[in-house]
């Protein structure tokens, strides 16, 4: 078996990668790790508060906790399965080293085992890690010892392997049945739709009712809710059952659940190997084949150049915009992201609608604070769409760089391409929230105009930081998002949103004083200072990253 050799090769690469890290990279990685640990701690605190509250609910507190655990495990299982589907698509069919491995004197099964183990690991480690704060909080609240954690790990490993294997099996079958690079596109869309569905289902299941039993008017409703299926025959239930049995000292049940999980994982992985021995190579071979489209040659006047001419815009910016639009909408990965965003907006507006607010003043206040949340959403979307825009020029960077296009022209085009959809998202979030919350005219106007300016500033920061930290030689967009530049962009954007809210809270306070009937509530000097501070803040947000990015890009000498 050559699997050992293949795995050792991975380990050697990892060790070499760690050894070659510079001091700066060590510091950067440690900073990322610290931020990640901070996030885990935050999750732990949240779970701890929630679980501590649930234990205080009389009679059914315990039941509620395990119900919540079962729901979390079911969600985890579906997310790891979908993730396994997506990750295996890349690792099994499109990773860079496959051309080398496939022509080497290796058994196809050895390649599959190595690649499938890689898929299982990468599709589950992060989701598995997020469960740890929950389990720690559960152990803390319930007074379980460290052996509870050990029992959880024992149950978790086959659980994750099983979930990921099922996702891999799905990809394997699909690529065999439809052996084409187009299947990759279809899988992206299916996977995203599944994730959006899981996300929407969780939201529409109204999990907040678990915390607020009083929200369900009739006891019968509540009991029904508790009886709602948590998929008792699914592996997520075996894990929950095993864990709860261990906690209550029923070791026989625990071992039975354990056995079920390990047997199922082994069985599914065994079947996966059998399946792979028959269909993997056929699917791999088909996936390498292109898909013919027969597009019509665009020899008439182009929409963008006509609009650009009408607006008196730079011709180069118009044609770059045309190219960007074509390339963007032909990349199915972007479609799936757009689906997710639409789901997100829908759930966001639904959540605002469900807010239990009876007071008109409170509604207006929430409408203003919504600017912060919507700003965060815009910044997060920017991390996916705006920040990577420059880097996504990729290895074609030479085309634009050697052509008669100025870098500011390119940056303006990227800005425009991001700003238009982002403005639409901001308008959807801002206008709908104001309407649903029936905010007063002053609050509506202030929040909406702030949100729009915020959106345009965040987009400018995205392009600026994207230019400041260009990455033209990456395999996928996630490497750009999770880079140091992405971190700096996100931190700066969030700081900007925070400062904006802080500054604008002064005029809002004065407005509320006026609403509450206070005479001469407005101090125009404070209002003027706030206006000046906003101009300064936005000036800095618009110009500083932009200018720094432009300079960096002009001096860029990397290969592309």
């Amino acid at each position, binding site marked *: 078996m050559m699997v050992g050799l293949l795995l050792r090769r991975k380990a050697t690469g990892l060790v070499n990668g760690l050894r070659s890290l510079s001091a700066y990279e060590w510091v950067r990685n440690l900073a990322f790790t610290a931020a990640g640990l901070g996030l885990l701690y935050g999750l732990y605190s949240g779970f701890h508060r929630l679980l501590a509250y649930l234990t205080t609910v009389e009679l059914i507190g315990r039941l509620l906790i395990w119900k919540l655990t079962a729901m979390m495990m079911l969600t985890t299982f579906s997310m790891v399965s979908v993730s396994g589907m997506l990750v295996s698509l890349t690792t099994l069919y499109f990773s860079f080293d496959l051309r080398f491995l496939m022509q080497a004197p290796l058994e196809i099964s050895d390649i599959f085992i190595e690649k499938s183990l890689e898929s299982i690991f990468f599709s589950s480690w992060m989701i598995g890690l997020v469960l740890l704060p929950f389990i720690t909080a559960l152990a803390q609240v319930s007074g379980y010892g460290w052996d509870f954690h050990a029992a959880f790990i024992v149950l978790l490993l086959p659980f994750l392997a099983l979930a990921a294997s099922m996702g891999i099996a799905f990809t394997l079958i699909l690529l065999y049945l439809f052996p084409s690079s187009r299947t990759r596109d279809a899988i992206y869309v299916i996977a995203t739709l599944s994730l959006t569905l899981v996300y929407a289902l969780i939201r529409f299941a109204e999990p907040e009712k678990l915390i607020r039993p009083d929200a369900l008017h009739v006891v019968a409703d509540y009991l029904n809710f508790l009886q709602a299926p948590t998929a008792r025959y699914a592996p997520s239930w075996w894990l929950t059952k095993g864990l709860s049995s261990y906690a209550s000292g029923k070791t026989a049940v625990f071992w039975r659940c354990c056995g079920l999980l390990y047997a199922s994982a082994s069985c599914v992985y065994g079947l996966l190997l059998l399946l792979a021995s028959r269909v993997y190579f056929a699917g791999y071979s088909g996936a390498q084949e292109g898909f013919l489209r027969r597009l019509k040659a665009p020899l008439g006047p182009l929409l963008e150049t006509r609009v650009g001419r009408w607006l008196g815009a730079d011709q180069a910016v118009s044609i770059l915009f045309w190219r960007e639009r*074509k390339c963007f909408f032909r990349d199915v990965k972007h479609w799936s992201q757009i689906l997710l965003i639409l789901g997100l907006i829908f759930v966001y507006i639904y959540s605002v609608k469900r807010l239990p607010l009876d007071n008109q003043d409170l509604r207006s206040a929430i409408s203003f604070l919504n600017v912060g949340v919507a700003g965060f959403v815009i910044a997060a979307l920017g991390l996916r769409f705006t920040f990577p825009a420059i880097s996504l020029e990729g*290895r074609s960077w030479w085309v634009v760089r050697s052509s008669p296009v100025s870098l500011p022209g390119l940056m303006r085009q990227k800005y425009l391409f991001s700003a238009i959809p982002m403005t639409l998202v901001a308008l959807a979030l801002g206008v709908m929230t104001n309407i649903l919350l029936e905010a007063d005219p002053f609050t509506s106007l202030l929040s909406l105009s702030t949100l729009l300016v915020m959106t345009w500033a965040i987009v400018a920061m995205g392009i600026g930081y994207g230019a400041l930290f260009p990455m033209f030689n990456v395999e996928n967009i996630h490497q750009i998002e999770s880079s140091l530049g992405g971190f700096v962009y996100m931190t700066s954007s969030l700081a900007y949103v925070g400062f904006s809210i802080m500054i604008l809270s002064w005029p809002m306070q004065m407005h509320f004083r006026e609403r509450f009937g206070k005479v001469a509530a407005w101090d125009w000097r404070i209002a003027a200072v706030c206006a000046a501070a906003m101009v300064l803040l936005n000036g800095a947000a618009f110009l500083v990253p932009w200018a720094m990015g432009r300079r960096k890009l002009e*001096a860029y*000498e990397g290969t592309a």
Partner: protein
Amino acid sequence: MIRIQGLVKRFGPLEAVKKLDLEVRPGEIFGFLGPNGAGKTTTVKMLCGLIKPTEGRVEVAGFDVASRTLDAKRSIGLVPDEPFVYPKLSGAEYLRFIGELYGVPLAEQKRRIPELLEMFELEKWGGELIESYSHGMRQKLVIAGVILHSPKVLLLDEPMVGLDPKSARMAKDIFLTLAKRGTTIFMCTHILEIAEKLCSRIGIMISGELTAVGTLADLRARSQGAPLTGGGWRQGTAVPGGAGSSPLAGGGSGLEDVFLSLTGGREYADLLRNL
């Protein structure tokens, strides 16, 4: 048409290009040769404004690349060593993009894009996304793109790599025709036969230094004396135990002999012995 004065490029402690002075006239095809890592691609990148020189000045078509960058770029057509272009555009769309970017009138684009696609035998592929193209097809598309906007200066970095014999022959003919019409061509290549047949003058760069420039006859005359590695002329070395006809023996007269003679051949000889 291309004027290079005191061009230097440093990457940290590495001096990739050392005080390069060179002039290439209109209508001339200049071959730029040298071993891997000699600094040829770095020079091309500076000529077309992809990277900035550390010192020195480059003038293309009468425009200083540093101060009148866009004017200079408008006059240049670049074919890089790695013809990577937008995978999600079709071949025809890429040409349209290039046409608009370089301000080719629409009527001319309508006429020339189908012509160029046909000329490079890409007419059936013009509507397909570039991601489905082979390396050679992408190379042909990039060459079609530079021809579309009729640049005054062509910068070619290994333009024949990946081309089938018919396309390579056609590309050579195209370059010769363009040169006859006055286009300046600056070509980096490792295919010495192409340099020999196409180039009116040849420059050999070793470790960032232009160590020899001239016509093939000039270079041949100089190589009779001694090979050159890095700093200066050195006594020639015959291949120990090598075949009598080995180019390293110095007896040949083609560009390959001249090139190997000028760039030194001891390592090559050792390698041959160990094979």
